[in-house]
């Protein structure tokens, strides 16, 4: 069994009117958008704009106060994170969260066990995913002995191993060198082209955003202030004012 990271053709995400407040602070306010199956969208915005909170609500880690999230037209409301994962939503964490006492293969096999009960099969699949992400020679290592960029790849591998229809990437390029970023971008492009995997990514690295995304969503103070093609959004005066300083385009 080789690692054809097979995903279903579907994976359309619809976010309807979700909000989340923490005490007096409104983190996300009535945000609606949709990602068509097979597309790559980027979610950008300044720190504290509510990007990760939005992710958490899609993945079920936090309950939205209002609104609904649908995958291929089916509501995910009330499902636990593990159920949402099995429904086809894979996610990574902004700060990597590997299983430190397990080898890389075991880390990724945990993800693969979402669709198989056969541990040997899960391990085989995990090896394939690790190869795909360029971690093939470190399969038996532990997360503490690999570099941070490699740990970011591991985070992606574990999510990919669950065979998601929709992949949520939370700043996986942050801290990577340009060459590593380009490698990641190429991997995601290939996955998207080969399997129709839908991707929603939170990213600060504009180089990756511009290279990958079909559309860009901009959050500011919990509100969606732009939703359009990358080149349109980067020309939007409101977006420029709130977030895209000169340094983002150097």
């Amino acid at each position: 069994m080789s690692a054809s990271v097979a995903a279903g053709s579907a994976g359309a995400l619809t976010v309807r009117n979700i909000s989340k407040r923490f005490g007096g602070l409104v983190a996300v306010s009535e945000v609606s958008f949709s990602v068509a199956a097979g597309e790559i969208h980027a979610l950008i915005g300044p720190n504290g704009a509510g990007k990760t909170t939005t992710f958490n609500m899609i993945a079920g880690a936090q309950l939205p106060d209002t609104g609904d999230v649908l995958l291929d037209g089916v509501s995910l409301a009330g499902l636990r994170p593990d159920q949402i994962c099995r429904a086809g939503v894979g996610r990574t964490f902004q700060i990597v969260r590997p299983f430190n006492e397990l080898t890389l293969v075991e880390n990724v096999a945990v993800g693969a066990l979402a669709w198989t009960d056969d541990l040997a099969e899960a391990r085989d699949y995990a090896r394939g995913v690790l190869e795909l992400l360029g971690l093939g020679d470190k399969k038996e290592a532990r997360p503490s002995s690999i570099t941070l960029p490699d740990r970011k790849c591991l985070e992606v591998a574990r999510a990919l191993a669950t065979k998601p229809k929709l992949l949520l990437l939370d700043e996986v390029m942050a801290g990577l060198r340009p060459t590593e970023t380009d490698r990641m971008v190429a991997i995601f492009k290939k996955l998207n082209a080969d399997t129709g995997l839908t991707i929603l990514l939170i990213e600060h690295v504009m180089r990756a955003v511009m290279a990958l995304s079909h559309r860009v969503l901009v959050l500011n103070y919990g509100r969606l202030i732009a939703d359009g093609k990358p080149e349109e959004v980067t020309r939007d005066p409101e977006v420029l004012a709130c977030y895209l300083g000169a340094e983002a385009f150097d």
Partner: protein
Amino acid sequence: MIARVIESASPRALALLAVVTAALLIAPYLVDSYVLSVLIIVLYFAYVGQAWNLMLGFAGQLSLGHALFVSLGAYTSAALFIKFGVPPVIGIFAAIAMAVVAGCLIGYLGFRFSIRGVYFALLTIAFAEFTGIIVDHISWLGASSGLFLPVKNQQSNDLLNLRGSPTMFYYVILALTGFAFALCSWLLNSKLGLYWQAIREDQEAAEASGVPLFRYKMIAVAISSGLTGIGGVWYAFYYNNLFPETMFKTSQSVEIILGSVVGGVGTLFGPILGAFVLTPLGEILTAATDGMHLDGVKSFFWGFCVAAIVLFRPQGLWPWIYDVLGLAPKKEGKR
């Protein structure tokens, strides 16, 4: 799966395992009755330590109330035997059921209400102590004056009724320890074990990777409490007397966990090694301090040794011995 465990071990480790197993099998014919009695206690703690380790070392859930499961197993089987003449070979099923029900109740409440870490540990203590006080007031179970099994001069060993010589009890607890070891190593190398370890390492990340936390934590508690309950059955018929005053106490739980922690939490050999170190250590201290006629000397050194291990070998003795003896297979990867 067992084949896999053997495959992944180094020849040296396998040789050691074979020697230790063989030595344990013939031990009753080589040692005197005192050493045999010590070995019996060693194996008992190796067994219950293994059962406890499954919950913390594998699945990451700290219980400080395992005395409850020993006690429930012990009281259930003993009461059935004394009051209704039910032999332990049948009573053991009721004993397991009682322990598992109690474990699942605590687990259900703890996991459903998201009680974690120290708070979960305190919940387990509270349940054990609470049940102890209740049993202390049930006169049908002997209340505070204790529950006693009839001790007759037995000519032959009666395995079904668990009446017989220390040698018989030795082999029973040896078999149980072997069974628990095999079960744990099989579980650890299964989907269940991998899911448990994922939960132990990072429960949110595990959940996001599709691990149903509640179900797998409950399975861990159920297996751990059931195994511990079986230990309780053996305990009741070996010691023949049960007092709520000591059975349900946190100090009893501490004794159960001590071997695993000293040996190495989360390892398969840790609980066994820990029991083999601690029980004889206690015996040596008893012998060494016997002449002093001073209460407390032994327990002081005991506490001192445990503190020293916590401070200087916090990973337990097994990972250390593992390296010292060179038991690791050529490639990286422990356990």
